[in-house]
């Protein structure tokens, strides 16, 4: 009962806070996307700043599908990375220094998506453990070199809850913990969630019915506070 009261109060506080913050729209946040209307995006191999060596390969399999769903032509990632590898540039750190107009020249891409894996880890604490996946996304125009869109998609999953006291919530939490640990802490579903959060803020592309109609859609910053 006390719990419920707490939730109610925090919800109320949250909604009050929300109404105070000035709202901004996708157009105000990312005018470059509407000006240039890029149609095609090449996804570069992610830069990995996390401590997990395999994060780069795994994360790279999660981004093409949701990006295509936002309406852009996404160059087939397995092909473009292999071409880059043949050219001797697989290291994303090298890619960062490459002039972006090269991607227009070679692939015909209107924009380049840079992704950086900031966090891909489990943090064990005394009473809790958190799984965090955090991805920085940045879309750069190959025509003007300006940054058209950026967003950080972060998902923090609380894996604790072993002793949340009985009740249904406690049981559910426990079940989730078991599920996650048996899956050997599979990060990919959370990476997909992080992508979904990030891409939610990206203006739609040509192949989406809402293309060029979402200027006034509210921009929502879902990045959790540190």
């Amino acid at each position: 009962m006390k719990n419920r009261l707490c939730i109610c109060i925090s919800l109320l506080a949250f909604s009050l806070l929300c109404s105070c913050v000035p709202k901004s729209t996708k157009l105000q946040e990312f005018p470059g996307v509407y000006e240039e209307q890029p149609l095609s995006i090449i996804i570069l191999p992610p830069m990995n700043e996390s401590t997990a060596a395999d994060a780069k390969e795994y994360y790279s399999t999660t981004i093409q599908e949701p990006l295509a769903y936002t309406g852009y032509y996404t160059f087939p990632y397995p092909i473009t990375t292999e071409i880059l590898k043949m050219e001797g540039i697989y290291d994303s750190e090298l890619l960062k220094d490459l002039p972006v107009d090269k991607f227009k020249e070679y692939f015909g891409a209107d924009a380049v998506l840079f992704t950086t894996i900031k966090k891909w880890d489990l943090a064990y604490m005394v009473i809790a453990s958190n799984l965090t996946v955090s991805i920085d996304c940045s879309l750069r125009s190959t025509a003007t070199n300006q940054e058209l869109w950026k967003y950080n998609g972060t998902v923090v999953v609380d894996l604790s809850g072993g002793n949340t006291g009985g009740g249904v919530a406690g049981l559910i939490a426990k079940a989730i913990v078991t599920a996650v640990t048996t899956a050997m802490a599979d990060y990919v579903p959370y990476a997909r969630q992080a992508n979904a959060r990030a891409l939610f803020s990206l203006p739609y592309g040509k192949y989406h019915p809402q293309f060029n109609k979402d200027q006034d859609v509210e921009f929502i910053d879902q990045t959790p506070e540190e």
Partner: protein
Amino acid sequence: MKKSVLIFGAALICAFLIVGCVPKQIYYFGNYSSTLYALEKDNNEAAMVAHKQELEKIIAESAKRNLQVPPGINAELGFMYVKENQPDKAISLFQAEAALYPESTLLMQRLVQMAEKKKSEPQDTLSATEATPSQN
């Protein structure tokens, strides 16, 4: 009798409401991300076959559902055919990609050239494996 008509009507209204609410899917992607992830994770023949079958399924299923094949799928399957030394199949898939998505034309032209080159090469398997860039 009347009651059943009423129920039927209500069901119809419900169906319309549901259809109206659900945003129309623009693509059918099947299990693309999962099989690609498995391929990356296991990097073996079985995962490769599974991913190829998934690409074929996506193309067939998209046609069945009257949807455009998602970006990159035709090309990715074509790329697999290049590696399997079936350049003709590859070329028609690259052309299909370019026809669906004009944005891909430049890259598809390059891939068609690559496949054509393969065609003029001797067909023995040894040179084919040499020409194929190493996995990984």
